[in-house]
């Protein structure tokens, strides 16, 4: 915890430096090869070898995605692409195409500086999915609850508010929970690493206070209108009665429509 605080205190500077160093590092690894280099590389691998490499990258990303942790381009290069580096662009193009055409998933770069990727579902989640087939993950129930609170409170909340809310649901962040274990760690560490949440120190607070927002993955994966409809059912109100949230949900909906 103390480390996190220290980090976030000088966060901006350090993060900038780090991501710069990282991206420099990776740029080196991915220096644009010249056309003739690419040509030569293509000739030195058989089509079957290249097919196999594409399959390996797809499997690697699928396995990594099971943990929902963003995938670093450098890791793909280091662990899978290796000596095929000169044609990595061709390989990644085919990987992206495969995810799109076969799996209905989209490989999204969420951070162009450090080249982080996540897999986002292109098929809309449907409430009427055969229930027995959806693996029940209780953590997602908790996550959805927290995302709802943040959304309904205008997009950003102090962490104390979330802890208070969870306590009312008998999930006390101060105690070990039977299912969630260390709730505070799950929320501020696991969900943050998975990019569902952002957990940031509020500047100039003493003692330090933190706030929670939606992470990039939540933005890409969670349908705000569906969320609003569920909250509406809970409160027995029309979704449109929350004007600001409704406007945001409508805007988000049309945006994702155009992306699909």
């Amino acid at each position: 915890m103390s480390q996190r605080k220290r980090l976030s205190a000088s966060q901006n500077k350090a993060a900038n430096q780090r991501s710069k160093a990282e991206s420099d590092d990776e740029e080196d690894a991915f220096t644009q090869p010249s056309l003739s280099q690419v040509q030569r590389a293509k000739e030195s691998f058989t089509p079957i070898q290249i097919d196999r490499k594409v399959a390996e990258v797809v499997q690697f990303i699928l396995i990594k995605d099971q943990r929902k942790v963003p995938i670093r381009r450098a890791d793909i290069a280091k662990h899978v692409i290796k000596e095929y580096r000169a044609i990595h662009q061709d390989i990644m193009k085919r990987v992206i195409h495969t995810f799109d055409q076969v799996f209905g998933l989209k490989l999204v770069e969420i951070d162009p500086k450090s080249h982080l990727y996540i897999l986002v579902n292109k098929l809309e989640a449907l409430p009427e999915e055969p229930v027995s087939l959806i693996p029940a993950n209780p953590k997602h129930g908790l996550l959805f609850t927290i995302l709802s609170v943040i959304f309904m409170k205008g997009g950003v909340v102090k962490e104390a508010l979330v802890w208070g809310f969870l306590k009312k649901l008998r999930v006390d962040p101060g105690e070990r929970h039977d299912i969630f274990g260390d709730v505070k760690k799950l929320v501020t560490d696991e969900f943050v690493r998975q990019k569902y949440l952002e957990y940031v120190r509020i500047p100039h607070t003493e003692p330090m206070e933190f706030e929670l927002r939606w992470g990039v993955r939540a933005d890409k994966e969670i349908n705000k209108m569906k969320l609003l409809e569920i909250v509406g059912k809970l409160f027995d109100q029309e979704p449109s009665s929350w004007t600001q949230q409704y406007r945001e949900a409508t805007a988000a909906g049309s945006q994702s429509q155009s992306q699909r």
Partner: protein
Amino acid sequence: MARPMGDSHRRFLQTIMSNGIIDGSQAKALHKHCCDVAGANYSQDRLDEFIDVINLHLQPMFMHIRKGMSEEDGLQYYALVNTAETEVTRMSSDYADNELELFRKIMDLVAESDNGTASSTDILNCGDALLSKKLKKKETEQVLNKFVQNKWLTEKHGEYSLSTRCIMEMEPYLRTIYQDLLKNCHVCDNIAFQCQMCENPDCGIRMHLPCVARYFRGRSDPHCPACNEFWPHEIPEMHRPLASQSQPSSAKENTAPRSTPLTSQGRRSGRRL
């Protein structure tokens, strides 16, 4: 490629991926659901064709939706399996080294047993003897629960056996490691763990319990289908109309993608018996 995939196929694939394995009736319901949602043509008896389209596109990724039979209830299941490098490492993203070592020990126990099970007592003792990092009894129990939850093992009255998913997914690996210990079922020609064995030492064929039930149904005086010796085991009752489960096709399809030469050898010797 002959037939392109649509969103109905993609949704079906995604659901199988997140479940690992689904049973035949779930697959039927899911097939209908996916076609309905995507506004695609649906016809009840086209499930296998529907899956063939997906498999055609999965093939370059070394994946395959495979049809198999459960050793317990004889029902059909569909699982997504890897057709290359099917090793325990496939699970490694979810498990620690000592947990994987425990799993290998459990597979040893199961493969060496006569009836395809390992008792919880024996497994708990294994946890104590791990080389990577010992597991306490309590921890071993937790890991065992995790294996069951993630559908790698099944448990019945303190006896653990390899799940349908585990067998379907790891068959090539199992055949490589336990080539001398494993035999195929005489009826369906698939690998047989939970089974009955002919007690004639020169014969010793194995049959899955559901296959036994199916084969001897209505026969008062059961004899081994290979050596004609009396079949001394109790014939299990299967309370489902198993015949309607289209047994021949399951037997055939389960063995679809086999790559290693070892497995084809295994199959040949299975037939010779």
